[in-house]
């Protein structure tokens, strides 16, 4: 009964305590959230090629006390400060992220991670103003090892101030902070507030704020290893090609005028990659050209030559898009496994085989728009366009160059709608100063590697070296006047030259009066250029794109999307999809089959808004709610050094060609919390051990005492 008594007593106590507890209950709180603040992150990830890896990763969750450095002096102070006993997460402005600074920090053994603050241009969220001069983190001649001059000695270095940060491998996390949307603004504020608190406490008065990164990358060593183990995917996407000639065929012996640009670029933080100067200006140029040419009074598909627009992706990764395109059109497709239904081929995989209509032997000239934004650092001045030609085959492109300069000089009268109010942007030959530099890194090189004598001109806004915004995370703005003017001029020059070439005219002075009249209809739409710049950088949900893709209907309409190519087949390709729709629209023949009276039948509309009732025929596509016929297609882009096997796995076909892959990563995470000093943690451990030892000693004495005095055991 004593047992029961003690039992009842216990019940009674419990009851009483329960009542007491009720009186003292506080609101329930998730204990995890009380300690940790999970915030959004913009990581730098690991990519691999045939020889090694680049990018950042961390094997264990790295965590460090936040430490702020704003200048080089701060970094040096951090390195030499011996009072800092912990591991630190250094928060620095983006432009301090140079190889030497990173190396300085890493060699202190106090570094656990780096946060690079990539300031937006809004004044509310800036750690410090952007510096006047910045450097490109790319190599001194980007992708030149896969370019046309890879085997020539003394290749011209197009990016001599490049720091080559992008090709380094870091074994600690580097994340970015940016203010491009609400979620990122919250992270930005949280981290900046925390690091300011730490700075205020002098980094010595604990508890301090600390940040932990989860950034585990599964792939290691190089592409061959990680493909074999299944831990990486090729970098790639969907290139787009389009031609107004619906009936183009490889045996029609009609020459082809190629107008091309790159759609993607790269930078350290793939979520921030925009590449306004690096690639967007070129893409906008080609889209404007296509739109301008679509209003030609002489229909494009009746001309002497075909016009082919090509927008390649994955160009920043060894010209993968253009090289694969050239490779695919140059060799016949041996379809081993035909598709279950529809067109294309299951193995080797092609979603359609219409690219076979393009005969590379028919390619007559290539006109490419490279960096044409006139965005320089330091900013200032008005832009000039330069036309580059290959220097290995100097005579091949000479005539074309002359024509370009001729067209650009304004000899053909006013070429913009509305008319340009500023002085026209001058167009000059890049070798006008006597130095033959050859072509800058460009997609055209892929065509020339197959056949070196194709007349080719690449238009850029630089003569001697690429913009220092190349491959920069800060390449996200443009000059509203200079950039628009430069793009207009480039589009105008290219469109008119292409039009003349398609007519078989290679000298403007030799045009017939009818042609001179007709060329006046080729007008570049300035409003379109401005819209495109905005839509492709800041607001993907703009009316222009919404008209094709109905993006505003989604729950959170996208605004700023990165121009990183992504991984093959595993990401949506918003810019490829838009480019396809746009080009399909401007090159299409709407509602074809003219009946006997020559009156075109009304266009079939409603194929997407009322898709249950209105269907397009099998040879038509539904673009912008209309059924159209078009020869606009996608083309897979990934490194030509990689091949796809029948079981859909990838392998290295040729290690000397581009073999870029991206590692599989565990979900990345970033969390903010307090920490105590290592000293106090050691103190807690010591206190615990001392307490336990003391109690053991007391217990031993207690037993002896009890034995003696109470005579029990």
């Amino acid at each position: 009964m004593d047992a029961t008594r003690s039992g009842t007593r216990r019940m009674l106590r419990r009851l009483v305590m329960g009542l007491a507890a009720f009186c003292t209950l506080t609101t329930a709180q998730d204990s995890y959230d009380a300690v940790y603040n999970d915030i959004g992150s913009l990581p730098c990830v690991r990519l691999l090629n045939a020889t090694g890896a680049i990018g950042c990763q961390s094997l264990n969750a790295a965590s460090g006390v936040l430490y702020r450095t704003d200048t080089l002096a701060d970094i040096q102070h951090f390195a030499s400060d011996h009072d800092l006993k912990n591991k630190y997460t250094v928060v620095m402005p983006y432009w301090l992220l140079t190889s030497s600074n990173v190396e300085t920090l890493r060699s202190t053994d106090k570094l656990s991670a780096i946060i690079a603050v990539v300031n937006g241009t809004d004044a509310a969220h800036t750690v410090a103003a952007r510096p006047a001069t910045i450097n490109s983190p790319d190599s001194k001649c980007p992708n030149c090892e896969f370019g046309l001059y890879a085997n020539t000695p003394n290749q011209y270095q197009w990016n001599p101030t490049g720091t080559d940060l992008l090709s380094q491998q870091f074994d600690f996390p580097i994340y970015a902070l940016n203010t491009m949307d609400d979620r990122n603004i919250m992270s930005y504020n949280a981290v900046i507030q925390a690091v300011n608190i730490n700075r205020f406490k002098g980094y010595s008065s604990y508890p301090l704020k600390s940040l932990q990164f989860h950034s585990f990358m599964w792939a290691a060593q190089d592409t061959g290893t990680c493909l074999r183990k299944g831990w990486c995917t090729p970098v790639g996407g969907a290139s787009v090609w389009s031609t107004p000639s619906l009936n183009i065929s490889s045996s029609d012996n009609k020459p082809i005028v190629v107008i091309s640009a790159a759609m993607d670029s790269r930078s350290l933080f793939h979520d921030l990659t925009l590449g306004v100067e690096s690639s967007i200006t070129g893409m906008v140029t080609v889209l404007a050209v296509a739109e301008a040419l679509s209003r030609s009074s002489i229909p494009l598909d009746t001309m002497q030559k075909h016009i082919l627009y090509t927008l390649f992706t994955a160009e920043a990764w060894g010209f993968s898009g253009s090289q694969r395109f050239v490779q695919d059109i140059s060799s016949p497709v041996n379809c081993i496994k035909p598709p279950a239904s529809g067109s294309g081929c299951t193995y080797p995989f092609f979603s359609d085989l219409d690219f076979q209509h393009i005969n590379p032997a028919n390619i007559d000239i290539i006109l490419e728009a490279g960096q044409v934004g006139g965005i320089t650092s330091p900013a200032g001045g008005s832009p000039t366009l330069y036309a580059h030609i290959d220097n290995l085959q100097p005579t091949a492109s000479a005539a074309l160059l002359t024509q370009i300069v001729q067209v650009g000089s304004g000899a053909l009268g006013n070429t913009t709608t509305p008319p340009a109010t500023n002085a026209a942007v001058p167009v000059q030959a890049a070798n006008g100063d006597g130095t033959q530099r050859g072509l800058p890194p460009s997609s055209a090189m892929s065509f020339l590697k197959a056949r070196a004598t194709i007349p080719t001109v690449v238009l850029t806004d630089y003569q001697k070296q690429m913009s220092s915004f190349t491959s920069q995370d800060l390449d996200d703005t443009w000059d509203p006047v200079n950039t628009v003017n430069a793009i207009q001029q480039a589009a105008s020059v290219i469109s008119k030259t292409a039009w003349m070439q398609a007519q078989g005219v290679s000298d403007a002075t030799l045009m017939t009066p009818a042609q001179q009249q007709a060329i006046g209809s080729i007008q570049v739409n300035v409003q379109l250029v401005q819209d495109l710049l905005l839509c492709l950088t800041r607001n993907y949900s703009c009316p222009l794109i919404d008209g094709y893709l109905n993006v505003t209907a989604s729950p959170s309409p996208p605004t700023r999307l990165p121009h990183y190519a992504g991984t093959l087949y595993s990401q949506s390709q918003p810019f490829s999809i838009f480019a396809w729709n746009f080009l399909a629209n401007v090159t299409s023949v709407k509602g074809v089959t003219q009946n006997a009276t020559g009156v075109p039948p009304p266009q079939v509309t409603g194929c997407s808004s009322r898709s249950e009732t209105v269907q397009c025929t099998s040879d038509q596509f539904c673009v912008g709610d209309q059924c159209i016929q078009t020869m606009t297609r996608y083309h897979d882009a990934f490194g030509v050094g990689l091949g796809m096997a029948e079981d859909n796995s990838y392998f290295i076909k040729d290690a000397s060609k581009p073999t870029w892959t991206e590692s599989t990563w565990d979900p990345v995470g970033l969390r903010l919390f307090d920490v105590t000093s290592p000293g106090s943690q050691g103190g807690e451990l010591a206190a615990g051990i001392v307490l336990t030892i003391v109690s053991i000693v007391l217990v031993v004495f207690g037993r002896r005492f009890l034995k003696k005095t109470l005579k029990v055991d």
Partner: protein
Amino acid sequence: MKFYMLQIYKIIKPVVVCICLSILWVKISMAGSDYRPTQSSYTVYNESATSTVSQNFLGSLANAGIIIGQIVIVTIIIVIMFKRGHIKILIGFFMVVVAMLLGFMGYILLLNLIQVLRIPLDYITMAFALWNFAVAGLISVFWKGPMWLQQVYLTVMSSLMAFSLTGLAEWTTWMLLALLVVWDLIAVLCPFGPLKILVESSRNQNQEVPALLYTVNAVWFMASPPNSILEREYSRSKEGSTVRDSVEESGDLRRDVFNGGHSRSTGREGGTSISSSRHSGLDTPFSTGGRMSGNSSTVALVPTASNQSADHGDIELRERTPSSSSPRSGGSTTSDRDRRSASVRRAQAIEQGSRSRPQDGGDNDGDGDDEDESGGLKLGLGDFVFYSVLIARAAMFDWVTTMCCMVAVLTGMNATIFLLAIYQKALPALPISICFGMLFYFATRFALVPFLAALGPSQVFI
């Protein structure tokens, strides 16, 4: 009685170790790995978050019913086979199942560890290590080996089995445990229960089959009694035997086979229960530890359901074998009541698959409290497995439930042992512990954990 106190210690230790190992495996696998055990294809009902309470109840009842059905059938088959004397077949089968358990569940666990701890390990090393691990386990369990090694392997096997059973959905697990309680009670206590029949037949056959050397017990019990006890019993024993004999015998005997397999490889179907009893006893000297004399242990193996056929590729690793394979070993504590009759062992048969038997406490002899000679308490391996399953399921929720259920299960085990001392016959080991465990789990989960969550950050103590 005092003897029991010491024996309780010896029982608690391996049970606690097995439970801790199971908690460890569960916590590791919950830390985000891909290789968690999954349900077998025998379940007819898949729980989903949107089902109503009654749907969950009936569906999990169906699932658990299927598993129990398999167990019952296998138990009966084992009883029949035992009665007919096809011991070798059973033993051979046990060996295969143990090998599969150690090999494949060990493989899945190792994959879990590698993924969560991010250990870089190549396949060759892993295959080599796993092969050695499995073979050493087979040898130490079925043949000769150091006692401690056998104990370690049995514990690890129990925890592996429990880990595999955590792949069951939640409702199904609780239903299964509840049905097991009922089955255990029926099978051991009712006169027509298969396990009772097993015990009797082993007792009857006792004399005739000295060669049945399989002890199914957790060996350590056998080995553990200190020499003093051994001698004491020895001296009491009317039959003489040398300690050495005992040792050898126990060495040969032990084997606890249990396990059911879930080996994927066998793809099997149904569990088999095997019991073997050992009788050593009568004409042979007691085995060490006294308990032995004639303890029969039965082992029930039940390869359950796993059914993953062997032709599944590696990818199927994820599907683990299901539940139920629990080997249980029969362990049982028995003490010989009647040495003279030599057959007194109380065999505890383990049922197939899941259950284990209860331990019987042997107490024996009626001579008095300190004459237990049979050697200590024996606890079937199946008991270990199901205690661990209950606690592993509690561990999937929160640490507080884990601790509460652990104490509850140990308390239940103590209570059972007391009853054993009082009633002196074979008792089912599961019911009290599982009932306590389930009660505490639900009470803690729905009442205590939210309470503590509210108190925690506000640093108030009650």
